[in-house]
């Protein structure tokens, strides 16, 4: 049971950005992927989720043994993959509530024929409202927001912290098996970072999520403790170790990794 990335090569507009990434994130494990700006970290997250702009030229991505490559992003989500985005997109006129309701219903398969227990019901493709309402209220506690938040339009006018909390709220409702957190700590003040991190930890514990935490800084790793740390430079993983790597990086910076690479040939 793992998210397996095998020798992944990804190009954008014909230019190769990822040059053979391989790593395995087991259910319940936490992996950190640290790298300097422009190393291709976000490309990895978009490619995993299936953004059409990112062409996979070689390699494979398996989720519990099933290849994701032929799947559109919605099918990957339904397979149990979640991406908390660095820059969540705003959708005007769509309340956070109605979006969450639609997404939760879709991922839990309410739109599927077999789950439509009452085909005559107009909203058979949606999770029953009361049930959903109850659950979303519980999940709001996790990110310390009240229900007024749900009436706002999706990511429209959200502060950096609100956007990231909304991402974690989505993760809580979609209950993924594996989650990629792309620079989730960016734009967060210290309180928001703590709340968001604690939310993620709670979810991981209850759902046994396999986490891939993509970050530039070690800040978030003070709250979400990684089992494995990968250092990512120029489109590939160049070093893998335990949490001690984080301290080493903090101390010596990415230049140290580059120098070591150069020295090692």
């Amino acid at each position, binding site marked *: 049971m793992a998210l397996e990335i095998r020798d992944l090569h990804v190009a954008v507009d014909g230019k190769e950005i990822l040059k053979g990434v391989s790593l395995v994130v087991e259910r319940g494990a936490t992996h950190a992927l640290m790298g300097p700006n422009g190393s291709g970290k976000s490309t990895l997250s978009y490619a995993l989720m299936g953004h059409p702009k990112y062409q996979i030229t070689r390699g494979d991505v398996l989720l519990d043994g099933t290849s994701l490559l032929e799947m559109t992003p919605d099918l990957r989500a339904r397979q149990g993959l979640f991406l908390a985005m660095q820059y969540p997109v705003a959708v005007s*006129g769509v309340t956070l509530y109605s979006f969450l309701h639609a*997404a939760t219903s879709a*991922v839990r398969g309410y739109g599927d024929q077999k789950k439509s227990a009452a085909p005559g019901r107009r909203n058979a493709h949606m999770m029953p409202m009361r049930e959903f309402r109850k659950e979303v209220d519980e999940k709001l506690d996790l990110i310390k927001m009240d229900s007024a938040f749900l009436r706002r339009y999706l990511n429209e006018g959200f502060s950096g912290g609100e956007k990231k909390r909304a991402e974690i709220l989505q993760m809580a409702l979609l209950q993924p098996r594996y989650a990629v957190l792309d620079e989730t700590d960016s734009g967060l003040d210290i309180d928001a970072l703590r709340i968001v991190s604690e939310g993620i930890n709670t979810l991981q514990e209850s759902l046994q999520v396999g986490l891939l935490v993509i970050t530039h800084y070690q800040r978030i790793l003070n709250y979400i403790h990684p089992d494995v740390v990968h250092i990512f430079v120029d489109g590939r993983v160049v070093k893998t170790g335990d949490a001690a790597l984080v301290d080493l990086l903090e101390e010596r910076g990415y230049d140290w990794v580059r120098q070591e690479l150069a020295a090692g040939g």
Partner: protein
Amino acid sequence: MGKEETVSDLHQDLRDIKEQDQYNFRTEIDYAHSSRRGIGEDVVRELSSLKDEPEWMLDFRLKALDIFFSMPMPTWGVDLGTLDFEQFYYFMRATRGKTRTWDEVPDAIKDTFEKLGIPEAERKYLAGVETQMDSETVYSSLKVEWERHGIIFVDMDTAVREYPDLVQAHISKCVPVRDNKFAALNSAFWSGGSFVYVPPGVDVEIPLQAYFRINAQSLGQFERTIIIADEGSNVHYIEGCTAPQYTEAALHTGVIEIFVKKGAHARYTTIQNWSRNVYNLVTQRAIVDEDGLMEWVDGNLGSGITMKYPAVILRGARARGEILSIAFAAEGQHYDAGAKAIHLAPDTRSSITSKSISKGNGRSGFRGLVRIGRGAERAQSKVLCDALLLDPESRSDTYPYIDVSEDDSRVEHEATVSRISEDQLFYLMSRGLSEQQASALIINGFLEPFVKELPMEYAVELNRLVQLQMEGSVG
């Protein structure tokens, strides 16, 4: 969260709506009394005599017919080259006869109901099993309390018989017979429509609703509606249109005239969802007196060709007009819609908000006219026009006409054209929504400013219709 919660309990809602429903229509349909196809004085006379109309109404019709013949076809906006007036029936009277049963409802219509997810009870109602509406509007009852307040809400034929003075004083006073060729056509052949009079100071709390449907092949639908909101009164009138699909083209040429007296407030809400073979050529206009407020809430999803420009004539000081419209033009549909605001008095204000969506080769044009006439000092008008294009071949055109005669007035015009972005789609799809669901969600968001003005059941229906329009399975 009120809206979402109600959606979940739609069954209950519809039961509630039913219980509130004032009209106990009976279903009887028999097209024995239909005119020949085409236009002529004989048809007007036959229609008028079948309706047992007074002489003045027959005269009105005959004069209108002459005017119709004398006027040219509009040559702008949409292509009406294929419109052949001789192919339509201009009058059909649904007379009392047998009740239609569910088995007699065409499968195509049942299928549409299935797709819309309309509950069984509602289907029968819509299919005309429990209620049958046709080119004549049949109101069997008027709520007792309305009568108590002196509110008149009857079909136009009844109004001609029972309130001839009121009808004569208002018909064609807002939309002159000569206004355009289709207004003249309607004046000659009008049939059905509502007559509403609200006495001074009366607040009609529950919206007045009328259902119009085209049920017969090639049946021209020429409703004529007059609404008079007397001084200080308040009324909301809702007209919903749905039309089953038939093979021959149908013509819908309505005329709506609204009189908003001093300090009164009238709102007219309509969502038209005619089948794709319908020509929808409607004239709707309101005259607003001092301190009055007129609101048009106008949704267009159906028909093949639509020309429609809800108008407000702000005649009294401080009169206000608000026109909010949406149009969704899918494959093969062409809308030339818009709005007109004519300011004739000081401190009048108007706002026009138009949202259009075009899909496939659908074309959506917006024609907005703002005229600040002499004497309309300090008048203000704001026009906001947003277009959303779903495909590279979709098209949207904006034609603003602004004509200002007073220097201290203010007219603002803003127009945007947008497309659904790849990043928005990706974001929503990464949360499990299919491309179609994601697009529908973005579109619903785009339409939200309109939808939130609708009564609940209409909002729900509109969302479903948009979804069906996205799937290309409407019409």
